[in-house]
């Protein structure tokens, strides 16, 4: 059946000898053609992705086109592309693994209309390379002959266009076969996609940058950087311990000088190094960019340097402040790059004046990336002037050793500088978040639920699922106004007297089939992104807000975990997992549930479910509900106590989340309600049991969540700070830490405790998803929750990891029933990769959320007059010391920032008798937990840790980067409202102030008033789905202010 051919290769050995190698090459009578026009479907046996049938032609890119214009081929508008195996292999050999993997992913992506074709393994297509024929010529010939075969295979019904960059090929093959056209890529775009402007621009920009590169190669430059060592040398060096492998992390505040190589895995154990390796200066960094995997050679000890601990502003480029470095640490230089992690970068073109000063070569322009850590990028473009006021996306192409800066090309425009939408888009691109609206194909998969055609429980499902609609009282407790309810609870007494506790989670996997379009999209997004003013859903809203949301009074599918508990000891006797149908009876909100728990029944008027009942049945129903809520709380208390030695740790975990978005949480009532803990405890219980279940069923491919214990050395700062206030923090175990944090409470200043907790949070490592096959069982432990196994199961609407866990649980159930599992699970390797992706996306989500909040803070303070507006002056707490300044936390706005004690002119701060500060010449002296500023006149002022000071908040505008908040100490005394107990109240005041201001400015603006208000309300309704308990409303209002201002300045 197979035909054997032989390929003779001549390879060069490492010693430089030529080696003749004979490899077999088997040809087969048929390979899948993946075309719907296939003339012999029984022979081709197509499975998987097919080309769509509504294209006008098939396009076959030449090997050269695939290599150079791959970014354009990625456009979803281009359809009917066939990638020949010959071309794919050329990419693999000449462009390396990174681009080849991109190509593979494109081919796998079901949304993209392109297929591979294994022409070299097909009898009728394979052409042996002839004597003396160059590789390139042979590749072109093979691709052309395969194209001809393909054309005939489809019964000559579909014209095939071979796109090539080779002029000779156009000449030679252009008119050889009717129906198979050979044209150049530029020609192809002009003829077939004249309207696809983005592709044309990209094509021009790629062409130009390539031409530049070729020119440059011809000119002989002097070397700016040493060459990288070849890969074999690097690998051998790493093995022998001569070189060290690490990930390059550039210091954001000193991007020009300081970078660190963070050691990876094995190399850190072998070399005995604990800390990172300092890479000092651009020369030593040798063309590596933030995030690259680099190979580092250590310098001799006498060349080691210390890291700088002074506060520093980024614009002072090379003025290294050498005086204030810490003790020397291992220092090295980069000798090679193992993996480049270049992504899309947002940049700003220089303004007109700067362009002129850049001088002679106007074609090439140095643009400044938004991210400080990325070096300037050289772009060849003629549109520089037109792009001046915009944020622009560019890609890096290459960085030769002869060039000071990397070369790149322009990709697309995001929006105007300073414009809200542009800045938000910038944040998204910088975090590699892509949130295109859901595609047509995806919406087609969605079930329908309209008033004319309401969605119903199907009879088949009714048969297979356990029906809890009649038997269980199910209710949900969520923040007020929440629309996507993914968890509900139930509790009841069984006939044998025992209790049954149930957690019911929305059955998202019922609607999202594995590898469907929605599944792929959800996997790419991995989580719902919450920015300060908006939300990007992981699933289309028909699912997230309607069919998957466990709303009150409607039938919904759920995945349930039911525990049978002993009636007195609440010990777990039995557990049941499975698919169910539920109807939630009440949709409570936290405050109402707490009132019920406290025995205050006046809230029942707020619960819509009670409204239409007569007094008697109302009373009965109420009693039933109150019993359930009380029982639930009781059970939660017991379960919590049983979690061995972790009584405060759940609190720590929640606080971590709060702390990370501190600015958002500032308005939350300080004392969390007990109901919060009850619900959280039930969810933790469900997560824990599901984790146990899937791990038992699939010990090597279950997705769990781990929280590694923190490194002790990271706690040193926390301990020092606590000592300053006279507290002792015991960090030996999670329990002692939690206890000592509870004790470290200064009755006169509650902020101290919050700051200490936030420091503890900083010292801890992040919780991560992982695949059980890639980790030893001891490492599964969740430090924060003190559980041996934990996973995420309870929010499948907004987290993709939960969807995976649901599928695993379903497979585990069918495995128990000895049924063949329908779902194909991920292997350990795939799951590991997926976990990495989800972890990455989660970090990106957190970062973008933080960034967008900062953006709004800046926009809020930007237009305030600092001198007159008293809101710009606030109370702050010093929480960390640096050599030339202090870090200050402002509780009222939740801002953390640096305040200088020594300004750029070398003047230091001094406070007169009225405690107002001035700048005077003098010197600073830093101690462990205080810093003293002495003027030449002999006056001195000392700042201690946790001192309250008055700061002025201003915004430092920046053209190329995001604006930053600046703090300036204007007095060493606390601000007018020293009673910090009041700050909570004051922030509430602030909120109402803001609301007033919004309305006032809306009135003043007189700009289509009603429309505006409507818009606000609509937005509110749209966005208030999930984050009920956040600063959300406040920021929404700030956003509105910002919008008004922008529209004003542009309108007039």
């Amino acid at each position, binding site marked *: 059946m197979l035909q054997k051919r032989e390929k003779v290769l001549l390879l060069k050995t490492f010693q430089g000898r030529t080696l003749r190698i004979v490899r077999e090459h088997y040809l087969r009578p048929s390979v899948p053609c993946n075309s719907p026009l296939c003339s012999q479907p029984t022979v081709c046996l197509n499975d998987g992705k097919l080309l769509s049938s509504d294209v006008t032609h098939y396009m076959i890119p030449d090997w050269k086109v695939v290599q150079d214009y791959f970014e354009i081929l990625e456009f979803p508008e281009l359809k009917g592309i066939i990638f020949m195996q010959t071309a794919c292999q050329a990419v693999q050999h000449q462009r390396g693994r990174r681009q080849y993997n991109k190509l593979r992913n494109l081919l796998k992506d079901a949304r993209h209309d392109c297929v591979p074709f294994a022409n*070299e393994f097909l009898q009728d297509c394979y052409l042996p390379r002839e004597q003396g024929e160059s590789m390139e010529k042979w590749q072109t010939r093979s691709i052309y002959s395969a194209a001809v075969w393909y054309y005939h295979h489809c019964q000559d019904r579909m014209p095939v266009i071979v796109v090539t960059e080779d002029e000779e090929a156009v000449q030679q093959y252009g008119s050889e076969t009717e129906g198979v056209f050979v044209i150049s890529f530029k020609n192809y775009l002009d003829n077939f996609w004249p309207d696809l402007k983005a592709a044309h621009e990209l094509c021009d920009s790629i062409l130009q940058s390539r031409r530049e590169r070729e020119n440059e190669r011809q000119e002989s430059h002097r070397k700016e950087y040493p060459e990288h060592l070849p890969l074999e040398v690097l690998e051998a060096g790493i093995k022998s311990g001569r070189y060290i492998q690490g990930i390059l992390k550039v210091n954001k505040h000193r991007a020009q000088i300081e970078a660190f190589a963070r050691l990876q895995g094995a190399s850190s154990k072998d070399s005995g190094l604990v800390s990172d390796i300092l890479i000092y200066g651009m020369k030593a960094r040798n063309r590596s960019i933030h995030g690259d995997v680099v190979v580092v050679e250590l310098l001799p000890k006498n060349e080691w340097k210390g890291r700088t601990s002074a506060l520093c502003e980024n614009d002072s480029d090379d003025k290294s402040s050498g005086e204030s470095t810490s003790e020397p640490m291992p220092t090295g230089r980069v000798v090679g790059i193992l993996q480049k992690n270049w992504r899309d970068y947002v940049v700003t073109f220089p303004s007109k004046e700067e362009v002129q000063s850049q001088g002679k070569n106007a074609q090439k322009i140095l643009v400044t990336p938004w991210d400080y850590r990325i070096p300037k990028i050289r772009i060849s473009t003629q549109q520089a002037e037109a792009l001046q006021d915009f944020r622009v996306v560019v890609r890096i192409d290459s960085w030769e050793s002869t060039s000071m800066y990397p070369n790149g090309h322009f990709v697309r425009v995001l929006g105007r500088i300073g414009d809200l939408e542009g800045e938000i888009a910038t944040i998204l691109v910088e975090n590699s978040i892509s949130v295109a609206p859901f595609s047509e194909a995806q919406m087609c998969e969605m079930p329908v639920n309209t008033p004319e055609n309401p969605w119903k429980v199907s009879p088949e499902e009714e048969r297979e699922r356990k029906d809890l609609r009649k038997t269980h009282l199910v209710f949900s407790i969520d923040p007020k106004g929440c629309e996507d309810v993914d968890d509900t609870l139930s509790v009841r007494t069984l006939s044998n007297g025992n209790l049954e506790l149930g957690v019911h989670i929305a059955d998202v996997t019922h609607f999202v089939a594995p590898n469907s379009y929605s599944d792929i999209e959800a996997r790419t997004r991995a989580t719902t992104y919450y920015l300060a003013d908006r939300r990007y859903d992981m699933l289309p809203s028909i699912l997230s807000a309607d069919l998957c949301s466990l709303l009150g009074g409607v039938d919904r599918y759920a995945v349930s975990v039911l525990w049978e508990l002993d009636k007195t000891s609440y010990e777990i006797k039995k557990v049941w997992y499975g698919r169910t149908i539920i109807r939630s009876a009440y949709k409570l909100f936290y405050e109402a549930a707490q009132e019920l728990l406290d025995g205050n029944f006046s809230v029942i008027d707020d619960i819509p479910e009670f409204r239409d009942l007569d007094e008697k049945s109302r009373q009965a129903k109420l009693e039933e509900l109150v019993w359930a809520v009380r029982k639930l709380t009781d059970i939660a208390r017991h379960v919590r106590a049983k979690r061995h030695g972790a009584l405060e740790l759940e609190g720590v975990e929640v606080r971590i989340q709060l702390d990370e978005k501190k600015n958002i949480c500032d308005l939350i009532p300080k004392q969390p309600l007990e109901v919060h803990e009850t619900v959280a405890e039930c969810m933790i219980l469900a997560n824990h049991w599901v984790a146990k279940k899937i791990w038992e069923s699939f010990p090597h491919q279950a997705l769990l969540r781990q929280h590694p214990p923190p490194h002790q050395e990271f706690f040193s700062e926390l301990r020092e700070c606590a000592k300053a206030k006279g507290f002792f923090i015991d960090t030996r175990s999670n329990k002692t830490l939690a206890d000592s944090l509870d004790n470290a409470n200064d009755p006169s200043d509650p902020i101290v405790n919050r700051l200490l907790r936030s420091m503890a949070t900083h010292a801890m490592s992040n919780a991560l998803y992982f695949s059980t096959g890639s980790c030893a069982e001891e490492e599964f432990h969740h430090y924060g929750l003190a559980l041996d196994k934990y996973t995420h199961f309870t929010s499948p609407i907004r987290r993709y990891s939960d969807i995976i866990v649901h599928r695993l649980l379903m497979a585990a159930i069918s495995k128990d029933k000895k049924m063949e599992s329908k779902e194909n699970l991920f292997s350990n390797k795939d799951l590991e990769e997926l976990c990495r992706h989800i972890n990455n996306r989660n970090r990106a989500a957190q970062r973008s959320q933080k960034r967008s909040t900062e953006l709004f803070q800046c926009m809020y303070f930007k237009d305030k007059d600092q001198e007159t507006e008293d809101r710009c002056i606030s109370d702050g707490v010093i929480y960390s010391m640096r050599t030339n300044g202090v870090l200050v936390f402002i509780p009222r706005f939740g801002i953390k920032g640096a305040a200088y004690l020594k300004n750029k002119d070398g003047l230091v701060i001094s406070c007169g008798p009225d405690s107002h500060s001035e700048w005077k010449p003098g010197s600073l002296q830093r101690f462990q937990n205080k810093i003293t500023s002495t003027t030449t006149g002999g006056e001195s002022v000392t700042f201690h840790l946790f001192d309250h000071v008055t700061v002025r908040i201003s915004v430092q505008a920046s053209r190329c980067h995001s604006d930053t908040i600046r703090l300036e100490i204007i007095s060493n005394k606390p601000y007018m409202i020293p009673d910090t107990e009041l700050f909570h109240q004051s922030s509430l005041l602030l909120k109402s102030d803001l609301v007033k201001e919004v309305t006032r400015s809306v009135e003043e603006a007189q700009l289509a008033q009603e429309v505006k208000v409507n818009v606000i309300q609509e937005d509110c309704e749209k966005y208030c789905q999930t984050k009920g308990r956040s600063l959300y409303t406040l920021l929404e209002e700030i956003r509105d202010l910002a919008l008004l201002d922008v529209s004003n300045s542009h309108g007039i």
Partner: protein
Amino acid sequence: MAGLELLSDQGYRVDGRRAGELRKIQARMGVFAQADGSAYIEQGNTKALAVVYGPHEIRGSRARALPDRALVNCQYSSATFSTGERKRRPHGDRKSCEMGLQLRQTFEAAILTQLHPRSQIDIYVQVLQADGGTYAACVNAATLAVLDAGVPMRDFVCACSAGFVDGTPLADLSHVEEAAGGPQLALALLPASGQIALLEMDARLHEDHLEQVLEAAARAARDVHALLDRVVRQHVREASVLLGD
């Protein structure tokens, strides 16, 4: 070259085979007249020659004779020109000793040695070209040679190797696939009874995957058996035609 993709997303291996497909096998029996039995086999580009003498009296020290069964003596060698780089391989080096021992174990399990007590059976195998799966080729060649010699056996011994790449077991590894350094399993099977004559594995493989790799190797060995069976029948038919004259 770390970049070589052993199994593409479309399911093709480097040389165009799919995961379970064998290389082309060609074999001939009775290639030498002097020996009692001989055979030549090509599995892809791996070529091996096997020669069998015996059963005959014990040569050399009589003390080696076994009272209840025949002594199986196997020697393996590999030609200097068998690999890409010409390399002298002295007789009796570690690798060929080990291979000889493995062959001996394999054939002691297959030959009905108790029928020839106090005698000796010699099996000599030489690899002329090595392109992966040398053990399998040697066993297959030796089986044909033993059959050619008319030494009674329980069954054919059919061998095949299997590897494991990206969660998929690959049958009959070529040199390129072996050189990539993944796990590799060599299996010699008595196909009729499904008994395993020899199983060898180097490199580490997770226990969970062992079963499927073993299954792939066994299936490949059965395929090899079908081929060898055809070769033997063809040979016998030719011989009987000659005898019939």
